[in-house]
């Protein structure tokens, strides 16, 4: 049996109006991301990168077309099912880390597992192992405001990875960290992609991210400009 691609966009468009102006954020886009890819969406501001991530992340709905995640049509799912899908199959890494400020590093990383009602003991084992893997051993009890930007982003990566999602959507994950930290974070994500086979889809302007990508999809005005696959 042929495995469905992790992500598939079929003639997806997303239009909205900004004041009196009609904007085509995504315009009849066809795109397929296979399992285990380390792919970058790049392009100038307004090219539709973040909109595409939002559509794939079941945070937004297309004006037309179909978005499939592991073969499931997101348009056919209800609110509760979409919530469950985001919880179980999609990991998010945001530019501003977006950790829950009142939770510790451990609790932030544990957040999704707790939503999944994973038993406490299992949660503990998985979270501790992952925090160690991302280099945060010993910092479990620190709150986000007690961590550096890079450390916060590591927590965010741990939180995204811990439920074993089908895809991790990372929107400008290196934008708020220095070069050395960005390199470390990218190395970490690359290793996780390589070792665990997790699919990564980035939206970025950062050349360092593009340098590590296996595939670069260039967008302009919501349309595919170029799709470069690297060896």
């Amino acid at each position: 049996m042929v495995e469905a691609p992790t992500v598939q966009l079929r003639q997806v468009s997303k239009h909205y109006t900004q004041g009196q102006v009609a904007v085509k954020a995504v315009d009849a886009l066809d795109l397929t991301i296979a399992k285990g890819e380390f792919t970058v969406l790049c392009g100038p501001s307004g090219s539709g990168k973040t909109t595409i991530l939002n559509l794939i992340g079941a945070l937004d709905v297309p004006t037309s077309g179909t978005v499939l995640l592991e073969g499931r049509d997101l348009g056919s799912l209800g609110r509760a099912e979409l919530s469950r899908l985001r919880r179980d199959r999609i990991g998010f890494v945001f530019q501003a880390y977006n950790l829950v400020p009142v939770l510790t590093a451990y609790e932030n990383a544990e957040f999704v597992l707790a939503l999944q009602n994973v038993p406490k003991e299992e949660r503990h084992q998985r979270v501790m192992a992952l925090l160690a893997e991302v280099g945060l051993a010993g910092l479990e009890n620190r709150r986000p405001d007690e961590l550096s930007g890079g450390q916060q982003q590591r927590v965010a990566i741990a939180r995204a990875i811990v439920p074993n999602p089908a895809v991790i959507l990372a929107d400008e994950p290196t934008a708020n960290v220095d070069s050395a930290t960005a390199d470390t974070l990218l190395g970490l994500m690359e290793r996780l992609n390589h070792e665990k086979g997790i699919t990564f889809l980035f939206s970025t302007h950062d050349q360092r991210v593009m340098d590590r990508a296996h595939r670069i999809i260039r967008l302009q005005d919501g349309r595919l400009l170029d799709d470069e696959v690297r060896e």
Partner: protein
Amino acid sequence: MPFFSMAWRNLLRSKRRTLITATSVAFGVFLAVTFTGSGDYSYTDLINTSAIMGFGHVAVEPPGYNDTPSLAKWLTHGADIRQRVAAVEGVSAAYSRITGQGLFASGAKSVGGVFFAIDPELESPAHNLFLRKIKQGELFADSNGNGIVVGAKMAEKLNLRLGKKVIYTVTDKDGEMVSGVSRVAGIYKTGDDMVDGALAILPLGRMRRVLGYGEQGATMVNVFIEDQRRATAMRHKLAKILGGGEHQVLSWKQTQADMAGLIAIDRASNYIMQVLVGLLIAAGIFNTIFMSVLERGREFGMMMALGMRSGQVVRLVMLESVLIGVLGLLLGLIITAPWYIYMYNTGIDFSGLIGDDYSAGGVLIDPVMKLRLFKESVIAILGGVFGLTLAAGIYPAWRAGRVPPVESIKVL
């Protein structure tokens, strides 16, 4: 999901705001305890004082007597009724009595007034205010004797002293004028000139003979119970036990309709005041929770992006509201307890302002303001404050659960 821990930590993010809100809840508890406790005490005191001034909590009377009292209406088997009623569970005491209008004279002077015929062997100061207030002499000992106890003001008007003769004139059961002679056995003073100048206490057995009521006659059987709030239930119970016949059973609400009306109006205005205070406090809680929700819109959106259901977000915010309510209640109990204990035991004495003889409708009112809370009132206050806190959190919680994740993510 550690909702409790998250909710609690969220409240601690703005400690000052949480403390101010909890303090306003605590202040609401304080006001509710003061208003309700004052009402519970003063209404009970008024009703019980009225009961021991001759009305009882429940009264068995001839039909129509309450609307148009007349000595021509009497219970022919008053003593039997008293015995049956006194044996009923929940009844503290029951007394057969006769009351009616009369003219009291001594020498050349006379005054119109009311007589109150009682059996000295049965009556107890616990259920008869006038016995507690005898300042000179004592209550006559013989129910068939010729003793009389008069009020201090009546004694002054008629120039009476202990042992002096008083001639009383009343109408008997047939409407004929009849007179009797008594000697002053005691003088009471309640402090209310209207009462002290008009009411005289006579022996029940003698008045039965004077009025032609026979051995058992009485115009009423006054019934006393421990808890005045059960008067209506006791009224129904006694009516059922006594069955139909030449009597009717009334509670104090009917025999003291004016007082019942005043209490009802006062209680209603008290409730309205408390509701208004409650709404103000709820608005404060609403403001705190709503501000907190607006400030955390991004956070809620992000949590929902990670898979938290909107129902879970609603639950989280509602939990924060509940915690503020619980915190406010605890703070309220801490600041209210010393006040309540003081007001329960000592109270505030207003006799310097209103005097010792302040009365409403002939019923003496305690010049000392005290607080008493019925168990039901405590539950109502706790439930009310908690309910308002919950209600104040509903809209903010609903709003939090409606934050579109994508809108929150966009601004990141």
